[in-house]
């Protein structure tokens, strides 16, 4: 057992394994001091460092070298040192930078949450609510794209893409033959399939789950319902391709969609295959484990009344 490193984030101390990133150390502590992450995904090797939402200030490098780091660092890619002190929400510099990053991300991402399929599960929606400005200062035309069908099950709407690269990592690491990636440079970059090829692989549906915004959506569920009107239920089945552990999203007695189970950071616990995702939409296909755990604050838990609702009567 190697010696643990002590790290202090916003005044809260923790001991973590050497090699842990600041972000994961913060996640071990939990609560408000966990930096947001739009591109980092713990299940995808090499992800992170691109969106810059997780920037933090290292006010003390380590016990050996207590000098502060000169610039803000990406917490998802910076490993802890023993005695490191980090400022996240206690640093005005970090909050200002994060506000700037949100503004940059929203330049080419429409704020049409009411009609977006990702509404209620969108990390950018949460991020902009917590760290964004009240209004945009950007007055120029946004870039727009036609929707692209990637195969018969997935639709890409580049208007919403924030180029986090997560779907590219999924295709690289979970499928046999990646046929999509980033083309173009700068703000002309876009996700595209190679010469109109479709992503055709048993695990291709996972690109939907990792997309933090509404760019890649499930065509079998698209616009069938709002997420907060559905009821998430954990279930499993014996699958020879994947773990078979999923969340079923019910509307009444019907399963509207199947997704992988996600943790409190919105990251899937284990990736699932397309058979489980698209072809098993009857309750009889599954062994029901019980209601899925949803954070109380999440909009997904809205309209799920556990007890009797008592109407409020104005007695004035």
């Amino acid at each position, binding site marked *: 057992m190697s010696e643990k490193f002590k790290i202090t984030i916003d005044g809260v101390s923790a001991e973590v394994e050497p090699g842990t990133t600041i972000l994961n150390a913060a996640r071990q502590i939990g609560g408000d001091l966990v930096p947001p992450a739009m591109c980092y995904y713990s299940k995808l090797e090499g992800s992170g460092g*691109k969106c*810059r939402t997780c920037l933090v200030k290292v006010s003390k490098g380590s016990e050996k070298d207590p000098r502060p780091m000169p610039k803000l660092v990406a917490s998802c890619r910076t490993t802890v040192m023993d005695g490191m002190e980090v400022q996240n929400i206690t640093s005005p510099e970090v909050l200002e930078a994060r506000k*700037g990053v949100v503004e*940059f*991300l929203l330049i080419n991402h429409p704020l049409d949450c009411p009609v977006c399929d990702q509404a209620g599960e969108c990390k950018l929606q949460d991020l902009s609510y917590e760290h964004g400005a009240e209004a945009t200062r950007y007055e120029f035309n946004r870039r727009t794209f036609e929707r692209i069908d990637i195969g018969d099950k997935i639709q890409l709407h580049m208007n919403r893409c924030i*180029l986090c690269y997560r779907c590219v990592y999924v295709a690289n690491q979970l499928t046999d033959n990646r046929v999509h990636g980033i083309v173009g*440079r*700068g*703000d002309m970059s876009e996700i595209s399939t190679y010469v109109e090829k479709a992503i055709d692989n048993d695990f291709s549906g996972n690109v939907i789950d990792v997309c933090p915004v509404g760019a890649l959506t499930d065509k079998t569920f698209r616009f069938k319902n709002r997420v907060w009107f559905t009821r998430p239920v954990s279930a499993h089945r014996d699958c020879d391709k994947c773990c078979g552990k999923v969340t079923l999203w019910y509307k009444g007695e019907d399963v509207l969609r199947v997704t992988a189970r996600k943790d409190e950071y919105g990251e899937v616990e284990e990736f699932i295959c397309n058979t489980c995702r698209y072809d098993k939409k009857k309750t009889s296909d599954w062994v029901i484990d019980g209601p899925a755990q949803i954070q109380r604050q999440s909009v997904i838990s809205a309209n799920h009344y556990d007890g009797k609702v008592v109407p409020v009567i104005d007695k004035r």
Partner: protein
Amino acid sequence: MGVKILTQHSGVPGIDTFEVYRKQGGYAAVEKALKSMSPEEVLEEVKKSGLRGRGGAGFPTGLKWSFLAKPEGVPRYLVCNADESEPGTFKDRELMSRNPHSLIEGMIVSSYALGANTSYIYVRGELFYVIRILEKAIAEAYEKGLLGKNILGTGYDLDLYVQPGGGAYICGEETALIESLEGKRGNPRIKPPFPAVSGVWGCPTVVNNVETIAATSWIILNGGDEYAKIGIGRSTGTKLISACGNINQPGIYEIELGLPVEEFIYSDEYCGGIAGGKRLKAVVAGGSSVPVLPANLILKTIAGEPRLMTYESLADGGFATGTMMGSGGFIAMDEDACIVRNTWNFTRFYHHESCGQCSPCREGTGWMEKVLHRIEYGHGKMSDIDLLVDVAAKIEGNTICPLGDAAAWPVGSAIRHFREEFEWHVKEPRLSQQQNYGLAAYADPLPVPVTEES
């Protein structure tokens, strides 16, 4: 005339051929290093010389080399960064095309010091003529036994390859260069790990500029102490400056570090003064990515001392009143130059060249370009100026690689020093299209030396 190290063979007919270069004393440094010195001794001489990276960052070369990890059984690589493409900088291509063997000699000496048996020269793809010249020179060196197996019978092996780049500015950033060299899209890597630990194909790698590597031969032949005698303080040796803009004699000059900026601009040996007898308004001293300075601040520091062509003197005052040596791309602007248009032009370049990996650079460079375009074409608002300052500040320091800083610094510095000109563009949109804003406050406070020759 100062000491000439990199341009010592300038004007020698046929210096691009092996025979002429050898007759001029070429490859003597290879003989000396490989036959009479250990790699550690070569490294020690480079350290003693105080040579600093000539690509822009100015990091001590010997120190950079000493960081190279040396795990057992893992190859090490030297990569020459010849992806020169910053606006205003055009020194390396001249050095490579006119005297390719000086770079090859430097590559052999440097590779020997680093223990590299394979090295690369990564050249910007558009410079196809340079690639052909280098390949011809490398073939000659192989033929004469200066490359390949058992060089000069010393037992040292080195293979040298020329790798054409795809023509993206970002590939001049060392980790993007390595990605591109490996055949991938030229996106910068997130550091750490640094190339000295994990570079080309995950092996320890040093990436150095053309000018830096070419200077090592002279250092080995004459000794690091001799090199350190040239220049001032920690700015030792000579530097190639590519001078352009509104000057009488644009070109590439080898200067001894420590030369006063005023002498560089006005003496006949170098730029020969401002063209057309006009007054100097502003200077970008180290390529388009460094802060622009008005004439009064480029000629003298805020303390009133003459500004010198050294890393320290140019940076004196920080970004408030100073700038950087950068790559040595010296762009002079006369009293008629439009700072707003110039800043827009630079930003247009960085917007085009952003790789798009990280959000502040991808979205911010385009935003700045659009706002500057609006101001330049007479549709700006007064609030746009503060908006630009704020957007530049939100890009600076928050990106994966220094391209974000490179895009932000010209904008921030232009508004810092020439705010009135930006305001004038907003207040007088029609007038600003017809004439340039030449406030006396910005212009050269010195009388313009007019001679019969000029």
